[in-house]
């Protein structure tokens, strides 16, 4: 198989684009897809400061790498969840990338350790407060990424969600007719109220396989092991089903998710509706000031509960 562009030996075939690329042309393709996502969704400009949420996985490290290579001002935040050897390994991968690659671009890494604030790692914390681990993890990560983005005055927060993540989430929402979640499934969410950072997903045009290939080809050392807490999750099941469909019928995932985005744009020509909705229901948490629909936000409630049950 030869590269569609330069006719040298290809390293990856992309059936959904009816193309194959060598390393150089594939890197060009990936950078072009991210640049198109940033421009078409008005994500950020070259002068704005970006906070990338990194986990040590392929997507977030690839995102940090791509943004720096495209010339953006991108720092990162890593949240150490305290999941034993898994967190130790992922922390080491992030630190290695930050020192070897990001530092050469003048970018820095912020760190938050769950155990230091909550007194326990995520698994123990979830057990002690009687909440599912993945939901506890989601609450903590969303809160901390938003907090650091606001406190450190970043213009926008970027996550490594890819085409597969978004297609799987959309499938889950549609299967359960969770229409109220569909409005927030776009790749660019505005800072609708004071205290909320703008959130963007610059990788939504790239598949999980393409991002893994980018990481391998560019020698980005990421954690290949799956999070031990995610085993058997619904998202993984939806991804497997979508990948079977994609293999039989290339382009299925992008037709599904991008088609949804086109329909949403026709339905809602501006972000005003979502912003108006948020402004009507959100107000500052009485404890930390981050926006919430309740008097005290779910993070502060969780930390208050942790203080009563976690052995000090």
């Amino acid at each position, binding site marked *: 198989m030869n590269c569609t562009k330069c006719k040298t030996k*290809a390293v990856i075939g992309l059936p959904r684009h009816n193309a194959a690329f060598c390393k150089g042309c594939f890197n060009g393709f990936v950078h072009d897809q991210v640049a198109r996502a940033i421009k078409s969704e008005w994500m950020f400009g070259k002068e704005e400061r970006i906070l990338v949420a990194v986990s040590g996985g392929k*997507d977030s490290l690839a995102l940090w790498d791509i943004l720096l290579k495209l010339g953006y001002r991108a720092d990162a935040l890593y949240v150490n969840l305290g999941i034993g050897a898994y967190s130790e390994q992922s922390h080491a991968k992030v630190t290695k990338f930050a020192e070897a690659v990001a530092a050469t671009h003048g970018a820095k890494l912020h760190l938050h350790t769950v155990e230091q604030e909550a007194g326990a790692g995520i698994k123990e914390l979830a057990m002690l407060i009687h909440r599912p681990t993945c939901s506890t993890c989601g609450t903590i990560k969303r809160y901390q990424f938003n907090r650091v983005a606001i406190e450190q005055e970043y213009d926008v927060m970027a996550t490594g969600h890819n085409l597969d993540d978004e297609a799987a989430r959309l499938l889950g929402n549609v299967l359960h007719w969770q229409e109220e979640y569909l409005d927030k499934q776009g790749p660019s969410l505005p800072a609708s109220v004071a205290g909320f950072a703008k959130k963007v997903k610059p990788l939504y045009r790239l598949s*999980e396989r393409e991002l*893994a290939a980018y990481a*391998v*080809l560019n020698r980005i050392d990421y954690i290949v092991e799956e999070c031990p*807490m995610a085993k058997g999750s619904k998202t993984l099941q939806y991804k497997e089903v979508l*990948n079977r469909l994609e293999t039989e019928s290339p382009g299925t995932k992008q037709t599904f998710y991008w088609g949804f985005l086109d329909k949403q744009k026709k339905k809602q020509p501006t972000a005003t509706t979502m912003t108006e909705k948020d402004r009507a229901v959100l107000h500052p948490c009485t404890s930390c000031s981050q926006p919430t629909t309740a008097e005290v936000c779910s993070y502060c409630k969780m930390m208050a509960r942790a203080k009563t049950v976690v052995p000090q």
Partner: protein
Amino acid sequence: MQVQLSHPARTVEVKGPKKVKDLLRELNLVVEAHLVIKGDDLVTEDEMLYEGDQIEIRPVISGG
């Protein structure tokens, strides 16, 4: 040839020569969810693999 797999980590012996797409089919693995790495290099589905090659089949799915 030695084929290294993940989730769980294990090594299996597969007889070559064999095309990448046939190796994946034999192991009942979906192309869209995996990368095939020979030595340090990514290889496409039409690449022929031979006895003595060190192969890693890396899953690409992540997230919960």
